[in-house]
């Protein structure tokens, strides 16, 4: 069972626990299978290069799903992911770390529900934020 | 191989593993999984895609292409991450001194048509061990999986997989 984070313990500016990913070529094929996106730039190097890319690239939607996992793992059993999204601003390669991060931007209570807004993003080893986005989750209150 | 090493032989201990049944594992046949397998083999036969069409032909639902007997339930840590098959505690255990491995063959025996919606219970056992002696000995290991329909308890298929270790 995961540790439960409560609304009262969360403050603007807090960074949530990071999630580190590193996609093997196999993971990209697993994602193709799971998502139904069989575009060859994600597993066929020759095809990728013929389209002008340096090599294989990680699916944008997979990075989006990584950000969802970052949130899901943080909010625990008592929380709910209400909204998450990102833009695709840079490419990630298989075999390279993708660091998923999030920072709290706002906390508020509406209709008895405790909301937390966050900035979320994936980050390359060179520091480039390749998938910046935002999210909203609800958290349980103490008591 | 060094001369001092005695030639590999199938021992009685290895033979004693034949027939020991593994714990069961659940395999699911779903509309989505049948369609994906059919796409994977390049078939466009509507019997594998269109539920209404398959029912008109007298089947319960879309028909699993031959060779597909469902997807094992995948639980992290319990299945092989590459092949998906369950890693089971019980069942045969063999110490094989060979590093090389080849897929030798596949054989499926059907007792019923497998359709989407079927939930199967699979058990496996070591069915056969054969040694082909020579300069480079080859060990043929045949495992048999038996698939039962969970709802009726009826055996619907048996599949034998032969691996060649050399």
């Amino acid at each position: 069972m995961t540790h439960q984070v409560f609304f009262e313990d969360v403050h603007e500016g807090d960074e949530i626990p990071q999630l580190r990913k590193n996609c093997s070529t196999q993971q990209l094929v697993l994602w193709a299978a799971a998502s139904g996106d069989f575009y060859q730039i994600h597993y066929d190097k020759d095809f990728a290069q013929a389209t002008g890319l340096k090599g294989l690239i990680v699916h944008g939607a997979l990075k989006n799903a990584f950000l969802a996992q970052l949130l899901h793992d943080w909010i625990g059993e008592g929380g709910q992911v209400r909204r998450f999204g990102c833009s695709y601003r840079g490419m990630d390669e298989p075999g390279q770390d993708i660091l998923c991060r999030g920072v709290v931007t706002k906390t508020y209570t509406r209709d008895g529900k405790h909301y937390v807004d966050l900035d979320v993003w994936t980050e390359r080893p060179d520091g480039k934020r390749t998938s910046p986005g935002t999210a909203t989750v609800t958290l349980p209150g103490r008591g | 191989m060094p001369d001092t090493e005695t030639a590999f032989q199938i021992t009685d201990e290895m033979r004693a593993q034949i027939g020991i049944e593994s714990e069961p594992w659940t395999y699911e046949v779903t509309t989505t999984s049948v369609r994906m397998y059919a796409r994977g083999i390049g078939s466009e036969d509507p019997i594998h895609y269109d539920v209404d069409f398959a029912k008109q032909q007298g089947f319960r639902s879309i028909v699993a292409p031959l060779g597909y007997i469902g997807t094992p339930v995948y639980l992290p840590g319990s299945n092989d991450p590459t092949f998906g098959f369950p890693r089971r505690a019980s069942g045969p255990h063999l110490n094989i001194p060979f590093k090389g491995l080849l897929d030798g063959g596949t054989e499926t025996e059907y007792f019923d048509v497998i359709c989407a919606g079927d939930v199967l219970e699979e058990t496996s056992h070591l069915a056969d061990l054969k040694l082909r002696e020579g300069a480079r000995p080859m060990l043929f290991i045949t495992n048999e999986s038996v698939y039962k329909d969970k709802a009726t308890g009826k055996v619907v298929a048996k599949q034998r997989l032969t691996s060649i270790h050399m």
Partner: protein
Amino acid sequence: MAQAAPSVITDEMRALVGVDGPPLTLEVEKANCRMFARAVGHTDRIFYDEDAARARGYRSIVAPPGFLGTPVFHPGAAAQGPPGAGRGYSVPYRRVLNGGTEYEYLPENGVVCAGDTITAVSRISSFEETEGSLGPMLITTRETTYTNQHGAVVAKMRGTMIQY
């Protein structure tokens, strides 16, 4: 300031804004929830194990975030691009980028679980033109609404496509 490129948004395209596309059926099953969770690397067993999901109060295995089922595949139907792609208009740009994706969940209407059948309906919410470092660009924003078998809207997705 350089003269702006002529607009590529036609009346035909404007007429499509806000119009629902054809409904798409998505199936949520235990097996495809597990496959999605496995591909992402989720560790929470509510995405894999029915007993674990039930113990947490769900009907069955929970669809991982970002997963709303697998579209029913029809062989021979037009190439299965992104839902609603290439619908009845063309623009003079050859390059396409996926600009971003955002999912909004409405869990009070129902949490998506294995066994659900989801109907997805997509519509274009806007066309916008900008001039970027890549030259003139058309930004198409599309919204998809996901409705479950009980008629409840359980999620929405907004996607951005950039053509230049």
